């Protein structure tokens, strides 16, 4: 090229060319040396680069004073007045919430009616949303969608005769500080809150259904808190990056008494046996960057459709079947201390799994749906689109989700819908105690 270097754009062009060229060289080198399995530029960046840029992006958003960080108009991370991060969105139609609440309640009525002959109770446990009831702390203009949906759902469940344990109401009744139950950088609750919730659920099932409950077992005084590092960056903190959210401590809560569990994921993917910590906790290495640590998932993981916990010390000898979302990750291990066995299903991971296959196999003493309002409508739509609505055209079936009719329910293996309804009409559903 001709021309002189003495032009105003020269230094800038050199810097920009260096950035582009070094990105290209790095990408080619990584690919050639097999450092990454695919072209690093195929889906954007190698993981480290991406996280560094996301951290920088978070810093820019923070400096710009933004309280809503959006990837699109539908997914927003919102900073509450107290600095905590939550989910939020603008302009959600009211009608959609009401329909979702009604549909979920109707579907659960079908489940309850199917369980009635066996005398198996069904309880819906509503976990609290990160946003306190009333939307306290949300920027003015954002609606408290989770709690509004939660309220609608509690009312709809009552109409359909479904038992509901509203943990939000328990938090208020016990005067707990809502914010102290949650991570600062994530919408999930703390392991200590999971222990508290396990206690509440155990007490509820004992009071209403006579399932044995020993309060001393979940007495927080018998547990020790162990800090697993100051490196937790929540799932939505990861999305907005280190520069926006920073890190926070992750304190695991461990029983200070003898325990013995088997935790397994059917299919042989995972089988761990031993005391609480050995069976449940898989802690990422110290050197793992905070954005990749996934410390929250170190409690029994979060990405398996079906899992099972067996309490080898016996517990109360009862079996629970639980449909759960990520909020159950830090709750179920503590609940398992009380019970003999817990089988849990996560339809977010695989909508083809069958609740009733598990019921037939395990013959539970109670079926619980432990979910937070966020899972019900916004994030995956699994409840509304696939999980409980086999009558929805999207699921490929035409039957109404009611326990009454048999109709043209889909096959459990058709891969289109979570097979609640077909199994509802399966005569082989055994009564508890039958051989």
């Amino acid at each position: 090229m001709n021309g002189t270097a003495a032009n105003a754009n020269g230094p800038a062009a050199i810097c920009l060319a260096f950035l582009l060229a070094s990105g290209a060289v790095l990408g080619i080198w990584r690919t050639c040396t097999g450092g990454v399995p695919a072209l690093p530029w195929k889906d954007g960046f190698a993981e480290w680069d991406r996280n560094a840029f996301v951290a920088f992006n978070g810093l820019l958003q923070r400096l710009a004073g933004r309280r809503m960080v959006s990837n699109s108009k539908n997914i927003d991370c919102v900073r509450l007045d107290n600095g905590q991060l939550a989910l939020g969105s603008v302009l959600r139609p009211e009608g959609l919430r009401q329909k979702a609440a009604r549909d979920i309640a109707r579907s659960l009525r079908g489940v309850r009616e199917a369980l009635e002959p066996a005398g198996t109770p069904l309880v819906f446990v509503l976990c609290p949303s990160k946003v306190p009831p009333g939307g306290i702390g949300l920027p003015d203009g954002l609606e408290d969608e989770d709690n509004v949906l939660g309220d609608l759902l509690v009312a709809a469940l009552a109409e359909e005769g479904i038992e509901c344990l509203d943990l939000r109401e328990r938090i208020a009744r016990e005067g707990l500080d809502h914010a102290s139950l949650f991570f600062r950088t994530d919408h999930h609750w703390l392991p200590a809150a999971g222990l508290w919730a396990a206690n509440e659920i155990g007490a509820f099932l004992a009071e209403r259904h006579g399932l044995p409950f020993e309060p001393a077992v979940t007495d927080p005084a018998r547990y020790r808190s162990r800090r697993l590092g100051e490196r937790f960056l929540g799932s939505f903190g990861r999305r907005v990056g280190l520069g926006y959210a920073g890190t926070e401590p992750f304190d695991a809560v461990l029983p200070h008494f003898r325990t013995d569990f088997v935790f397994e994921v059917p299919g042989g993917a995972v089988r761990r046996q031993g005391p609480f910590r050995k069976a449940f906790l898989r802690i990422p290495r110290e050197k793992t960057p905070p954005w990749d640590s996934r410390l929250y998932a170190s409690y029994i993981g979060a990405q398996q459709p079906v899992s099972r916990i067996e309490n080898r010390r016996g517990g109360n000898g009862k079996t629970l079947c639980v449909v759960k979302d990520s909020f159950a990750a830090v709750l179920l291990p503590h609940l398992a201390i009380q019970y003999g066995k817990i089988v849990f299903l996560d339809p977010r991971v695989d909508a083809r799994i069958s609740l009733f296959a598990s019921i037939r196999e395990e013959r539970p003493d109670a079926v619980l749906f432990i979910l937070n309002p966020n899972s019900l409508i916004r994030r995956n739509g699994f409840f509304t689109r696939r999980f409980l609505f086999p009558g929805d055209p999207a699921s490929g079936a035409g039957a109404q989700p009611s326990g009454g009719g048999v109709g043209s329910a889909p096959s459990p293996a058709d891969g289109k819908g979570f097979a609640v309804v077909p199994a509802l009409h399966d005569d082989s559903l055994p009564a508890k105690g039958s051989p």
Partner: protein
Amino acid sequence: MLFTSPVFLFFFFPVAVAAYFAIPRRLRSVRNAWLLAASFFFYWSGEPRFTAVLAASCLVNWAAGLLSAPGRRFRHVFLFLAVASNLALLIVYKYAGFAAEQCNGLFGTSFRIPAIALPLGISFFTFQAMSYVIDVHAGKSPPRANPLDVALYVVLFPQLVAGPIVRYGTVEAEIRGRRETWSGFSAGLCRFAEGFAKKMLLANPLGIVADSAFDGADWILPAVGGGGAFLAWLGAVAFAFQIYFDFSGYSDMAIGIGRMFGFHFEENFLHPYASRSVSEFWRRWHVSMGTWFRDYVYFPLGGSRVRTSARLLANLFAVWFLTGLWHGANWTFVLWGLFHFVLIAAEKLSGTAKRVRGPLLSAVGWVGTMSAVLFGWVLFRADSTAGAFRYVGAMFGGHGVPFASPAAFLLFRENAPLLAVSALLSFPVAPALARRADAFCVSRGAKAVRSAVRAAWLVFLFLASLSFVAKGAHNPFLYFNF
């Protein structure tokens, strides 16, 4: 392949540039062949199915250029055939479905509505190809004997999929005789970075605001949401900035890349939101398309040098109907074009555009022009004409829409800095500041400091833009749809 995608930024672009400059300058044909191959790869990576269509278009227009040059027999016939084949390509891929739908609706016919995918950039490359044949036929440019030269003009990757619509005469000499210089390369790369930043830092975030208002248009109605008239105005303004910074950002990137390779494309945007009349707006907005229609449609029809006002109106109508239709097979685009026809016809017949003098009239002219442009963008952005009218109604509180809502104010508060920067950059502020800096920095040391500051600023903008790419943020290119 988007200019803003990692595969372009960190693979295609550096490799294309490095290999190009690794070829000795004296081997111009080899450099051109490399650029052509890279351009076809660029297109193939996004539209593998239609790469053959693009190649065929290049060949047909190359042959048509040879056959319709002055002195050839039946050259008018070949020109007609070339233009007809280019238009046929557009009609088949872009308008066939729309035409069948309208026929079925109007005349009760039952034509099958074909589901034809729109080849990327078809509106741009067919117009460029037509420009070549028409200019050769008119004797303005000699025909190219080498088909690769014509192909390079049509397919050159910087302007292939979203313009600017480069006229053949603009780059005719540079295809064979351009000079790549360090000053041109560095200016081009900086221009690319500026366009990248416009797109990622302004257009995309404001696009989210616009989408919230437009896609949730039903929610503005009080029965459902309650976003209010304020949200409707906010969405319209946000879209006006989004489309400007999106398209002008892309044009900056295209012009910048062209400059790096020694091509000088004409400017496509000249601060259109500083216009004081609609006529002036169209001299500043999407200049390459405006001049194309002017030179190849308006002037051949007689332009404004016609005897009667009726003829003038007919000419204007033809141009603006086609301008609207060029943007897409939808009545919203046609209405948008005709809306501008009405405004420009009114200005031409009344002579108001020429009478805008002095600060007061200029201010009034600016407000009137921007209002008209804003309503035009509502037509342009809406999914349907009914939706557009409903949206405009909401802007004025129709259907009982409230004035505002907390959600609308929240969106405004969050995006106020972006809106302010966008408004500022819509005027020629940056060039004025650059001129001031040039005048101020006369000593060698001052010039070095200025260059260093500019380098730091551009690197910051580049990295900031890149952070949005890494985050996988909302990243549509609006003009890819046309």
